[in-house]
């Protein structure tokens, strides 16, 4: 626990210092987008890594967060920070609803993955057809720079805000690693019958996990809207976000504290490097994500972080 908290504090200080050392837009944008991917991955890791429930539809929570963030401001006239609370709560509510439906009926593995994918698609089609989401045109957020409006004139403000979200997600992960709830969640992941035999309700812990996973994903959606000031059904509920969340978490290392951050950094560095080499071919990052995922699953099933641990153990045993 102590080691976790110290490493999180060190990470927070190091990342927070970067905008003080450089004003380079390229560096800060890269940092911001990496943190954003790390938040998605860390959130996915709570349910997928510690809970063993693989969602293919985290866009469901991301999109809900983004749309609620937009609609609360545009139609409700809410301050963006208040809207953020509402966005997170709505994403959590959608998570618990989908979780209750799937887990109540014992859906696991690929069945659960398909249900989340299907729900994300349903939400995408609904968002395309109803007026209050702006249908296919999407929603645009008017420019109103200022910290009180959750819009920052420079990237530094977004980097620090995003860092706060990531640190919160890491603290939740650390709590999972050192608490009764986390122990019960991992017990259900590893053997549901054995967990029930010692009094753990699989439904209850899985619902807790999907709530803890969908809330920060909703926050990532709200953040996306505040940065790009535009959302449409394909961005919000399309498969890209779902894939990004799970690939970064799996590549980094499932069920580890730092895996998702590491995975997000690696993938973004890789995407950036290829963009410089090959120009911005559309969809190239998806090709890279897919290839890296295949390689990792084949050669390092516990992710980069897990492979590192195995190497360290092998070195010690030498």
């Amino acid at each position, binding site marked *: 626990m102590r080691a976790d908290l110290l490493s999180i504090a060190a990470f927070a200080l190091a990342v927070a210092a970067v905008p003080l050392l450089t004003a380079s837009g390229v560096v800060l944008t890269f940092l911001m987008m990496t943190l954003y991917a790390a938040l998605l991955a860390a959130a996915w890791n709570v349910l997928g890594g510690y809970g063993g429930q693989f969602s293919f539809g985290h866009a469901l929570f991301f999109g809900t967060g983004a749309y609620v963030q937009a609609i609360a401001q545009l139609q409700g006239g809410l301050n963006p920070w208040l809207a953020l609370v509402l966005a997170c709560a709505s994403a959590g509510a959608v998570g618990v609803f989908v979780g209750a439906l799937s887990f109540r009926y014992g859906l696991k593995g690929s069945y659960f993955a398909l249900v989340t994918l299907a729900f994300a698609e349903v939400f995408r089609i609904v968002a395309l057809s109803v007026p209050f989401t702006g249908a296919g045109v999407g929603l645009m957020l008017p420019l109103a720079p200022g910290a009180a409006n959750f819009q920052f004139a420079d990237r530094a403000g977004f980097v620090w805000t995003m860092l706060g979200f990531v640190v919160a997600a890491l603290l939740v992960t650390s709590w999972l690693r050192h608490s*009764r709830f986390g*122990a*019960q969640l991992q017990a259900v992941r*590893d053997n549901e019958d054995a967990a029930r*035999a*010692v*009094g753990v*309700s699989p439904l209850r812990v899985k619902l807790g996990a999907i709530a803890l996973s969908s809330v920060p994903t909703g926050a990532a959606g709200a953040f996306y809207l505040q940065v790009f000031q535009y959302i449409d059904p394909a961005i919000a509920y399309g498969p890209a976000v779902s894939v990004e969340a799970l690939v970064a978490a799996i590549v980094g290392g499932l069920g580890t504290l730092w895996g998702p951050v590491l995975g997000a950094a690696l993938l973004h560095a890789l995407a950036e490097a290829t963009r410089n080499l090959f120009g911005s071919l559309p969809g190239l990052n998806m090709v890279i994500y897919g290839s890296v995922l295949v390689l990792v699953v084949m050669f390092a099933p516990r992710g980069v972080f897990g492979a590192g641990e195995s190497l360290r153990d092998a070195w010690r045993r030498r």
Partner: protein
Amino acid sequence: MNAPPAAPLLDASQVSVAFGGLKAVDDASLALRAGVLGALIGPNGAGKTTFFAAVSGFVRPQSGRVLFDGTDVTGWPAERIARAGMARTFQIVQPFAAQTVRENIAVGAHLHEPRRAAALAAAERVAARVGLAQQLDKRASDLTVAGRKRLELARALATRPRLLLLDEVLAGLNPQEVAQMIPVIRGIRDSGVTVLMIEHVMQAVMNLADEVWVLAQGRLIAHGTPAEVTRDARVVEAYLGHGAAARLQRAA
């Protein structure tokens, strides 16, 4: 002055479980008083494990009723029955394979202990009781068969149950390991936990059990002390085949 006979801790009456056309447990009744170490024996496929599953909530009985400490728990989900104080082990061991022995046992301890540090400390004490103290930091998947059986026992014990259902915790152990486990199980009973064990190792049953029930083809065919039950002609026939009792009689 005689105390009135205490109500049994576990009272299963006329429990039946069918899988399709197969009646795995057929109208079985069993009442176990508190503090007793009971054994449930019978040939392979007799329905012993299914009976355990019905009592502990993993399978819903088609008919019959299960009372635990006077409460009707028939049809309760397994986790609710576990919280009420009935713990079980699995014949086919079910460890949380990727986790250490300490973490495995702590999941059981967490049933009554919300704090992580206290649950881990409780896990160490339970591990010492079942002889796993040297292996606390091993992964469950790295344990031997005997180690995994001990782990099953430890995890169930860590929930501080009033009734412990042990499903063949001695199977697959060599004679030396069996001899080590017998005092452990007796110690659990002596600490006040009521135990019902499914067992094939007759040496252990004769040694440990106060009362024995015999299940054959889903039906309870005998009940008594270990000595009574092993003399019972129906029991001998259930194990050795029709006519075996008579042949044994002639041979003697």
